[in-house]
């Protein structure tokens, strides 16, 4: 039986097979050839600006490991934007609530090369406010990185919304915007700005409890935020794969897409 064929109608036999499989399975521990083949998350470190929520990304990576076939390393590291080791972490996030400052030309050039040659950079706005200082500075930074490719709202049929889960809208700790924004270079969107504080919804304390309440949707919204996180990870690895003709046709045939 094809194992990603979960979109077929469920039968009693399939349910029993799935239950049997789940009972036998454990989270898929990454044991590939080395760190290079494993997904991890790096947080950009800009003194006085960036926030750090490694527990949020660990939670996300654990979910990725448990839910998908992606081999991930749930370790989270911090990397200054001018540090060449940035290129060892193709999935990088920048969490902030205040205006970005302190990025010199070296850092900006490295960030430009990073996203131009295959890296994925997520700006997560932890302010929870519309038109935040962080958001404005992200736009300014993107304009500086790619003068002809400004940050723009992603369309509703963007691959991020169907990279693994089918999502109607992107939510985080808050819902101040109904859309994600991004910089699109050719067929891919390597820079994404989430205004809804995704990491805030996923963040947990040492005791394992959620650090922040999620509004207005409560735990349902937190679950949706987790799905968004998984999709972002999956999109960073598969780019526009879900826009390939085979997928679109199949999903439309099954009524999951219009």
């Amino acid at each position, binding site marked *: 039986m094809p194992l990603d064929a979960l979109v077929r109608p469920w039968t009693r036999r399939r349910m029993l097979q799935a239950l049997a499989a789940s009972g036998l399975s454990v989270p898929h521990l990454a044991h590939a050839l080395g760190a290079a083949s494993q997904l991890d998350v790096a947080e950009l470190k800009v003194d006085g600006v960036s926030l750090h929520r490694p527990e949020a990304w660990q939670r996300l990576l654990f979910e990725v490991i448990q839910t998908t076939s992606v081999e991930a390393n749930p370790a989270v590291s911090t990397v200054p934007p001018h540090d060449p080791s940035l290129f060892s972490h193709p999935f990088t996030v920048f969490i902030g609530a205040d205006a970005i400052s302190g990025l010199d030309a070296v850092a900006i050039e490295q960030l430009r090369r990073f996203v131009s040659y295959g890296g994925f950079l997520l700006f997560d706005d932890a302010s929870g406010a519309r038109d935040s200082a962080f958001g404005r500075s992200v736009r300014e930074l993107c304009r500086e990185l790619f003068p002809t490719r400004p940050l723009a709202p992603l369309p509703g049929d963007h691959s991020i919304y169907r990279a*693994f889960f089918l999502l109607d809208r992107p939510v985080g700790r808050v819902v101040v915007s109904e859309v994600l924004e991004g910089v699109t270079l050719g067929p891919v969107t390597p820079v994404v700005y989430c205004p809804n504080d995704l990491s805030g919804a996923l963040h947990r304390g040492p005791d394992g409890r959620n650090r922040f309440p999620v509004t207005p949707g409560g735990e349902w919204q937190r679950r949706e935020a987790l799905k968004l996180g998984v999709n972002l990870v999956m999109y960073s690895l598969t780019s526009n794969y879900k826009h390939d003709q085979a997928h679109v046709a199949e999903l439309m045939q099954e009524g999951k897409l219009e």
Partner: protein
Amino acid sequence: MMDWWLAGLQWGQGAVEWQGSPWVIGCVAAACAVAWALAVLPSRDVKGRTSLRAVEAAAWALALIVVVIAVAEPVQVEEEGREEPGRMVVLVDGSASMGVQQAGVERASRVDEVLGYLRENHAPIDVFTFDEALRSGAPDAYDGRGTDLAAALDAIADRHLGQSLRGVVVVTDGIDLGRLRTDLAVAAEAGALQPDLAASLPGPITLIQVGEEGALDDLSVESVVSGGFAFLRTSFTLTATVRGRPGQSVPVSLGREQRLVEERTVVLGDDGRAEVAFEVTPRQAGRFAWEVSVPIADNDAVPGNNTFPVVVRVVRERTRVLQVSGSPSYDQKFLRLFLKEDPSVDLVSFFILRTREDFGSGWDPDELSLIEFPYERLFTDDLDTFDLVVLQNFNYRPYFSRGRDDLLLNIAEYVRDGGALVMTGGDRSFDLGDYARTPIAEVLPVELGVTGVKTDEAPFRPQLTKAGAVHPLTRLGATDEETQATWKRLAMMDGTNRTLGLADESAALLVHPGLTEGGQPLPVLAVREVGEGRSLALTVDASWRWSFSEAASGRGNQAYLRFWKNALRWLVADPDDRRVVVAPSRENVLLGDSVRLVVNVRDAGYGPVEGARVTGTVIAPSGQAHPVELVTDSAGEAATAFEPSERGAHRVKVSTGPRAADRGETVFAVSNRNPELARIEPDAPFLRNLAAVYGDRGRYIGPSDAVDPLVDDSAARTVPERRELRVSTAPVLGLLFGLLVSIAWFVRRRSGAI
């Protein structure tokens, strides 16, 4: 000089030409002057009558002048034109269509009858043969490969410019392959048969048709339209036009190099023609010969036109790649981005996003954006549509549970039949993917079956081997040195799958710097030619670092792109992109023509190989093999001429060694089709139209009509004549000389000088 002395003296009509050598004349004149002086001057003091001595001197002088004149060889030349009756020019069609048998008799048999009649009744006649060109005399054989009546008439008009002919007689079946036939047909349809459509002739023209229309029984394949080339895996149409008797039901077959591909039956229309369209979908790139044929009846007028071979060159429009990944990863992501952005690649990706182990995560299937992995269709019906299959960390076991052996065998057979396969490293690849002892293992360039530890996770930098240093796949720089430097600079890998080393007939291009297997460095990048296909094993899963690490240092991702571009090109190598390539000078040749076969030999680095011994055969349709032995020059090229003696597809196979990479082959088609024989029905309307163009100075005579050519009896021509009278040889000169000498001698005696 003599003309000056004689002031252009003319005797009667015509002119005098002095043909003696001026030197000889001068010497003789000097000698005569001396002789005259000796004769006239007295030897002693003799007294004589002065008047007689003067007469003697004059006589001697005249006699010697006669001598000089004789030596000067005067010739009297008389030129004039002579009027004669005009001649009749006969043009006989010497093309192959005139040799067609009709009711057991050669069509051209009437030519002798016509020539005999004209010689007897309208002599003198000048006979010319015309086909593609014009030449003097009647045809020796009817084998011309073209008929250009317009050119023949133009040549006759030029040749007789300013003259008039009693007539021009053309003996032909009217199958003209020049422009005249078409021009007249168009003009006749428009009702505009104007004189300027044909050459202006110096006499009336008579067009005598030979061959009865409708008296032939000839079934033929008139034409096959293919376009000359086709795209791989894209259907194209071979449209054949069949000609025969109207209403006839004809089985038409399409074959490819002695094998029947398809047979269709058509009913010929009222015009005796029908089109048959064969849809063909080529599965391989290269040159291939197809042949459309109809049956040959015993009474078929021209058996040679019942088959129409044509060679079609099949080219690859885009490279179709199937990328199957068992787990989304950076390695898969970077390769997909490379393939997706290459406009020459048609990429189909399938990534396994969820495995059995992930089932228990509690998500509702309706929340997921997943589709079924169509592995059965991909690895059965669709497999041949791909040029390259990339298995990236793909675990086949959960998916190939049904028909596992069949599907794996399909992939192996696909490679042997000309497909390409790449397997990259990972925890689902090679022995970790349990590929040992499967059909896949038999086509990989590395041996599987590792027991114990199947990976090594220590970082390492792959080393270029001797073979890798010259192989086009690993050539990352413009020079060998640049290539070596680039590989030494590229990022380290984070581990490798272990294997049992190289498989047979494989080459390691990159090896592990520390690990060995069987005493040899462990291959990291290995390639193999399997049957008609190729395979590549890259035992690491971090080639993406060759892109990202270079980008980090500001060098861009050219090394990574070049590596995979090279790999793509090598893996799906077209026949013209192999190391040994043989190509014919023409793909469709006529029997009797010579075809030039050119062989190019390149080394592993695709540089020319000088002095390579090339052996091979040209295999005729009958199976007869004609050996070929060549040695390449400094450009890696060798050529030979081959004159086929059989009709049909000829396959050429050459090799420089025992391996598949050392072999090259091609095909060319030989037909005995003469364009003249494609349509052999006499064309009376054309001849009638041509006669009409000349109005009352044109006449058409049908095949059954009596030979009664148009003749212009008033036509005449002037024949220039030249008459020469050699005066020096006339007896009168000798007589005159003797008379003058006698007078001089007589006078001398009378004068008392003797």
